[in-house]
């Protein structure tokens, strides 16, 4: 009997070369990419040494696409084709976006998610985001001199299923292997907690460019447990700019502005806001296309006055999160400030007053999320030895349910449930001989379905005719570690199984994604085939490694016959990997996955038995 278990599930027993993994903060205003280098998380700058990438994408008639600073420089000249703050539109329809009239774009209302008409064609927010991610991927590959094996992309904790799915799709289109979607406040807690060896209850107050999150976490050695999260996915630094903009329009008594002037003045408003972080007053001067001059001075008192309701608006979710966690303000040991908008002195003051303590901001609020994401990516890539890694327990921000009679919501998984989570509920037919049942999946806290977000509608067909109330339709919800939902419905009273499975898609079907993938490849002038082959090879190699290390650790769980079947599938895959037929590799990967199904389940059972046998593992 081995005295020490050296390898852990999913980890190779022999030392391997570290996999290149990155963390990406896909922000409303700015985006960043970071990695862990020699054990230290670092933000990767561009060739000019700039760490931030403005989240701005400009489409040109030549089909050329500018991302970041070049696009930012042209935003006032070409407002309709220069997309800023695209994150606000992820997974959203036209009617969901507040003050959409203040955005200078040509919106196209599409089912599920809006689109934007540009000079280069109609673009989905997913494609626009993918352009930002692509630039970050290229930056990382250049800087790390190799292919990125996987990425963690952060999302606001309060993002719903539609917004998360849209983000993951953007990653895929940008050619990234998305290891995990990670909540921004949780990423910040990792960076902060590990830096400061924090223990106890912490609140992360994250006011970004377009979103607000509050998360309450319990930090104890090696475990980051989110106890409650809340927020507002339509509230951020942009709204402060908007208030300054409206103030300036009012003060200067301006007529409604065209898109160019609107963009120009919004840029000035943002500059004034930033100026007020360290100064008592800020000038706002601009020359409009109408020939009008704006020459105003905004004092910090006025700024505080016109934005006071916004600051107060963030405290509602803070109270709610504390209540959900069953905690009071004095139990919170520290408040971590995240997001550029927390630099505003009135935000710092309000949070300090609410919690009765000075907020913690010893890490750069612009970078802390990307750094935490990089640390988590490093763990997920398997680069950290057991005992030095940590466990992350996160939650879903909004309840998931289905519509019942009378347009009411029946909650199936309540908010703040630890993920992965799954739950099933039985429903029945209400008419004699009913053979179909339509199922409407919603997300939100309100009683009425019309007040919640609709995620998917689907129909379960083929229920054998029975009297009303006799059928038993089991609707199962499964939320994975990314916070993404899949739903299945099954009827099997009579032994005839009717079943359907859906993944909510928000108007972007698999075909759309395929098209965007193709187009994105065309732009990069890569060969579609070469890319598919490269992806399958990576996938195949990954599975070969994982299977080998599983066999090295737990071959004892298999009979000779079972072992032979796995060895055969493994050899089959290994033989195909150097070849050029990506479909054959894919088939071999699937075959090996099937062959190891039972083995995987047994290894998991064994893991649990070992855990209960009190075998201490690292620091947990």
């Amino acid at each position: 009997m081995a005295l020490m278990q050296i390898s852990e599930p999913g980890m190779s027993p022999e030392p391997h070369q570290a996999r290149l993994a990155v963390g990406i903060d896909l922000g409303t205003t700015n985006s960043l990419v970071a990695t862990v280098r020699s054990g230290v998380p670092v933000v990767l700058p561009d060739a000019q040494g700039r760490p931030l990438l403005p989240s701005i994408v400009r489409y040109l008639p030549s089909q050329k696409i500018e991302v970041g600073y070049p696009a930012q420089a042209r935003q006032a000249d070409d407002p309709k084709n220069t997309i800023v703050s695209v994150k606000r539109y992820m997974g959203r329809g036209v009617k969901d976006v507040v003050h959409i009239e203040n955005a200078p774009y040509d919106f196209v209302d599409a089912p599920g998610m809006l689109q934007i008409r540009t000079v280069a064609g109609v673009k989905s927010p997913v494609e626009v985001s993918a352009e930002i991610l692509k630039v970050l991927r290229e930056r990382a590959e250049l800087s790390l001199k190799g292919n990125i094996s996987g990425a963690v992309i952060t999302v606001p904790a309060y993002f719903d299923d539609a917004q998360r799915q849209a983000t993951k799709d953007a990653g895929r289109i940008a050619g990234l292997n998305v290891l995990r979607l990670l909540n921004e406040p949780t990423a910040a807690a990792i960076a902060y907690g590990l830096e400061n060896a924090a223990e106890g209850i912490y609140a992360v107050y994250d006011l970004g460019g377009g979103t607000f999150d509050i998360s309450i976490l319990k930090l104890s050695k090696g475990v980051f447990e989110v106890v409650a999260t809340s927020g507002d996915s339509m509230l951020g630094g942009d709204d402060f700019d908007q208030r300054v903009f409206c103030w300036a329009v009012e003060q200067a008594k301006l007529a409604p502005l065209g898109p160019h002037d609107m963009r120009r003045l919004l840029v000035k408003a943002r500059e004034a806001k930033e100026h007020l972080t360290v100064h008592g007053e800020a000038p706002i001067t601009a020359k409009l296309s109408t020939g009008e001059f704006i020459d105003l001075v905004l004092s910090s008192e006025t700024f505080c006055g016109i934005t006071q309701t916004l600051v107060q608006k963030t405290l509602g979710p803070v109270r709610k999160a504390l209540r959900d966690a069953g905690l009071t303000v004095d139990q919170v040991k520290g408040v971590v400030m995240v997001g550029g908008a927390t630099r505003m002195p009135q935000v710092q003051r309000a949070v300090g007053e609410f919690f009765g303590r000075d907020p913690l901001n010893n890490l750069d609020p612009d970078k802390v999320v990307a750094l935490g994401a990089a640390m988590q990516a490093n763990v997920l890539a398997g680069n950290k030895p057991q005992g030095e890694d940590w466990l992350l327990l996160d939650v879903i921000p909004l309840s998931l349910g289905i519509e019942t009679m009378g347009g009411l919501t029946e909650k199936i998984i309540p908010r703040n449930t630890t993920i992965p989570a799954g739950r099933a509920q039985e429903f029945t037919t209400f008419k004699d001989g009913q053979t179909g049942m339509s199922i409407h999946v919603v997300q939100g806290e309100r009683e009425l379905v019309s007040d919640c977000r609709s995620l998917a509608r689907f129909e379960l067909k083929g229920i054998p005719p029975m009297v009303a109330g006799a059928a038993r339709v089991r609707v199962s919800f499964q939320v994975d570690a990314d916070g993404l939902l899949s739903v299945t419905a099954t009827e099997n009273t009579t032994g005839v199984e009717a079943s359907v499975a859906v993944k909510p898609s928000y108007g972007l079907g698999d075909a759309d994604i395929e098209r965007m993938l193709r187009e994105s490849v065309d732009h990069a002038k890569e060969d579609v085939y070469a890319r598919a082959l490269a992806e399958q090879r990576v996938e195949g190699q990954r599975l070969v490694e994982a299977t080998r290390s599983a066999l090295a650790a737990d071959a004892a769980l298999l009979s000779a016959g079972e072992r032979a079947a796995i060895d055969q599938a493994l050899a089959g895959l290994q033989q195909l990997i150097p070849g050029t037929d990506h479909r054959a590799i894919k088939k071999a990967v699937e075959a090996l996955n099937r062959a190891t199904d039972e083995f995987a389940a047994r290894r998991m059972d064994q893991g649990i038995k070992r855990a209960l046998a009190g075998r201490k593992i690292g620091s947990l």
Partner: protein
Amino acid sequence: MQSHFDLFGLAPAYALESEALERSYREIQSRVHPDRFAHAGDAERRASLQWTTRVNEAYRTLKDPVQRGKHLLELHGVDVAFETNTAMPPEFLMQQMELREALEQAVHSKDSSRLDSLRQDLRSSRSSLEHKIGEAIDANKDYAGAAGLVRKLQFLDKLDSEIDAAYESVE
């Protein structure tokens, strides 16, 4: 089917060994969580997702005083029957009605300190009820009696979430 208590290696009792539960939960999670299998094959990722889901659900059930009671009684063959058995002693119902009236008044007068004190009272009645459930199940093995108490506790839980909603409307 393995009980939630078995899963964590705990004795089936209403009085919860919180620390032991938490320790087992974390030890199991550290072995089965999807973060440990982000680079593994589909089979292992699927098995990990299933196990983690099951472990999370079991943990949540045991941590929740109403769900723990329900689960434990089911293990003893008693159905708490939240949906079908809504009969409650009249004096308990009276008391509930009074509490709800007080809640409405607090909302009406936007009095959050009144909500604080309602919550305080509710907390102490909940903990005394939990204590009684523990006695009924663990010491007296009076499962039918315990089922009635668990139903009462569910009433109080509901009131608790109404207080939450009231705070939101007062703020």
